[in-house]
């Protein structure tokens, strides 16, 4: 039975790939329960600096999650940056995707190309070209330049994602609303927005994760502002506390929860809004 065998090999292969994808995540979570260090010859515990080797099981990193306030601050700063980025890029990107999906107009191909281009450039090129701009315009790097750089690549993500999600909607509903006397704002807030909301929310979540996670572009454009990834990059030279893994695990859990919730509510609603 040839097909049996090939399908069995396929299953095993897939399981191995999934394990490969899963292993480091397991390590991240596991090492949030690590207390790096070693047992001294006198029986005492000598704390270590690097969360690379298993010392002993401990809940310390969780209970003392705020042991390194600068790490916490950097994390919160990253969250704030990500929220700002989501806000700006979602507005810009959603408007663009509405234009691209709803209307037929000259120059659409060029706009589409312009939107795709940032996704075809390595981050190091995007980051370095922005830096060149900031340097030549004499803008000092900081929070603002970080937000600018993140929005730059997030707009493309938002637009392409939202575009894909809202394709095939029944835009005649808008006309109907207008015919019934609703003004432009009412039409937008009562008809268009509910229609596109699930797609936009999914794109916003993606953008949030992208911004929170970004290292390369941020590294080049952050000046002395430390985002969470940059703080890890700097701090790792002299120590890697398990609190880093605690934050990593929390982000993971929150994202999983949001995505699960989105999956259950968003899909159903969207399906009911599609034509046919």
């Amino acid at each position, binding site marked *: 039975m040839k*097909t049996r065998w090939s399908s069995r090999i396929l299953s095993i*292969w*897939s399981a191995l*790939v*999934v394990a*490969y*994808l*899963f292993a*480091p*995540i397991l390590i991240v979570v596991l090492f949030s329960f690590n207390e790096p260090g070693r047992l001294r010859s006198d029986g005492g515990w000598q704390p270590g600096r690097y969360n*690379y*080797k298993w010392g002993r099981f401990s809940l310390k990193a969780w209970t003392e999650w705020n042991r390194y306030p600068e790490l916490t601050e950097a994390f919160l700063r990253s969250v704030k940056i990500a929220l700002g980025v989501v806000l700006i890029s979602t507005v*810009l990107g959603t408007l*663009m995707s*509405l*234009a*691209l999906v*709803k*209307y*037929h*107009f000259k120059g659409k191909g060029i706009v*589409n190309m*312009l*939107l*795709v*281009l*940032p*996704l*075809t*450039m*390595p*981050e*190091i*090129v995007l980051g*370095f*070209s922005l*830096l060149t*701009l900031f*340097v030549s315009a004499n803008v000092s790097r900081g929070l603002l330049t970080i937000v600018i*750089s993140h929005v730059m690549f997030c*707009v493309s993500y938002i*637009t*392409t994602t939202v575009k*894909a999600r809202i394709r*095939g909607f029944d835009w005649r509903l808008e006309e109907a609303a207008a015919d019934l006397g609703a003004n432009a704002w009412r039409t937008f807030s009562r008809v268009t927005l509910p229609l596109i909301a699930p797609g936009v929310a999914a794109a916003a979540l993606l953008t949030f*994760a992208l911004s929170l996670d*970004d*290292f*390369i572009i941020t*590294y080049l454009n952050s000046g002395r502002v430390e985002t969470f*990834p940059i703080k890890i990059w700097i701090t*790792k030279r002299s120590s890697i506390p398990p609190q*880093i893994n605690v*934050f*990593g695990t929390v*982000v*993971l859990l929150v*994202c*999983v929860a949001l*995505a699960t919730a989105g999956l259950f509510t968003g899909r159903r609603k969207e399906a009911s809004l599609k034509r046919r």
Partner: protein
Amino acid sequence: MTAGSKGLKEKGEGLQPSKAWVPWVLLGPGLIWLFVFFVFPLVELGRGSLKDGGFSNYSSVFSDNGTVIVRTFIYAFVATVLALLLGYPLAYFISMKAGKWKTLLLATVVLPFFVTYLIRTLAWKILLFDEGPVAGFLRWTGLLSSDGTILNTHAAVIGALLYNFLPFMVLPIYVSLDKIDKRLLEAAPDLYANGRQTFTKVVLPLSLPGVFAGSLLTFIPSSGDFVNAELLGGDRQRMIGNIISTNFLRENFRPEMSALSFVLMLLILGGVLLYARILGTEELA
């Protein structure tokens, strides 16, 4: 990311706007942002690469960093090929065989994105370091010599690039496989096609757009990365990104670094066009 939704022409939509300026008002803010912070910086970068020395900056880029440029593209290429070998069967399995496990498996593929990039790369360091579990296991099996290391080798960097960008390969392929009308597959055996023929004649061609998108989404970030080479590589694993990231602040290096970035960008664009030709795919997203 949206490879799956392309191909479908946007039919039924594409209303003629009541006024020609309506779409441009919607596009305006985003377009301005992209022009000022994407197009214009690239122009600046191009200009900067010609400062003090003109085109000789480009020749010195190749003479000074030739090895690194070649290495970067080899790494990205190998990582992409491996991602295809690992990712295609997984995507195929999820789309065709997974049944009720589909959603869960898809979630597993996306999961790495939810762990901060730096943290998940550091996790590889935990796994791979000299006294770590993987090195220990490989030594035990004899695949690694007793004083052999995994960290600071080509394998470590390529493996981590592969890991970090594998989901970008799996998802587009999955989307394009998932779109295939399953009735086609049922029809194939009726027409006396065996399993392999069904795959090569029906499934594979229909999934090529996904393969195309996936390869690019793996190759592009791999070629511009420096985190994996910095954390898991050593002196002989440096990539273009490492050169730029160590020198980006040094003013006297800036023209050459700009030229290097430009070279990276042009090589990638060239590669994309070539690849599109070969696969005959016209659209990207």
